[in-house]
């Protein structure tokens, strides 16, 4: 029964999820910051762009720690590669145009919605905010539809 829903096992998913929560919780315990990921993209533009939108106070104030957070994410991935990952780099066969178009849409949409899977999904749900629940239900729905439509028209993967 469970194998049907989790053909690749469950433990690594649970362990990873708990660690992700531990990371967000550690940042909150130490600094009091609520650490979503996608605002990094806008706050980082404040280093390069003179557009007033990117120069707003909240981006200028948070861009340093958001950069540290993004670097930390990469560092964690690298630490996994060196340890449990046995030095075998992750890879993907998903086509480049999907990564490109999907990335652009995800970047635009996350900024418009004020959060992504981490900001709305993890931080927002964990602080029991109903706008985040609405966001999560919406992006899960459109992501499921998109992935299944793309699969059904024969794009693999």
């Amino acid at each position: 029964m469970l194998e049907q829903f989790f053909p690749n096992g469950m433990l690594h998913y649970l362990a990873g999820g708990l660690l992700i929560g531990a990371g967000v919780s550690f940042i909150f315990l130490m600094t009091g910051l609520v650490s979503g990921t996608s605002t990094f993209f806008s706050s980082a533009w404040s280093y390069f762009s003179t557009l007033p939108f990117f120069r707003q106070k909240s981006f200028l104030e948070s861009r340093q720690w958001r950069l540290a957070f993004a670097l930390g994410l990469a560092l964690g991935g690298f630490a996994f590669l060196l340890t449990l990952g046995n030095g075998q780099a992750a890879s993907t066969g998903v086509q480049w145009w999907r990564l490109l178009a999907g990335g652009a849409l995800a970047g635009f949409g996350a900024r418009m919605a004020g959060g992504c899977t981490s900001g709305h999904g993890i931080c927002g749900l964990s602080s029991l905010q109903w706008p985040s629940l609405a966001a999560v239900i919406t992006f899960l729905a459109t992501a499921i539809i998109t992935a299944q439509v793309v699969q059904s028209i024969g794009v693999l993967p």
Partner: protein
Amino acid sequence: MNTLRLLAVLAGGALFGFGLAWSTMIQPEVVLGFLQFDDFGLLLVLGGAVLVTLCAYLLIPKLMNKPLLGKEFHKHPNTFSKNTIVGSALFGVGWGLAGVCPGPVFAGIGAGNWMLLISGAAMFLGAYAHGRYVSR
């Protein structure tokens, strides 16, 4: 922002990134497998992360007046508007197309999944387009 606080954020981000890599969320195929109902592991990842964070967000402010390296616990209230739904709908289409969202892009690049550089660059451009769009 002092150095200790930045180091704490770096360390927390590293835990987060390690968790993303361990749970194989840095492989777009695994995320797409969830969205195509082949493997529901992503729900365990999200559920596990929310369970821990929910406890932290509820309990820590009750046990302490302020964070160890800061003045206050941020609430970060999310406001609801049409943009929440339209933006999330667009985000979902992008996520369903690429199989990666912002966190796994950084963790994945760190773990050597170089193809994700494409999505990372595209997300930067998407965020720039958003800034242009709201400034129009």
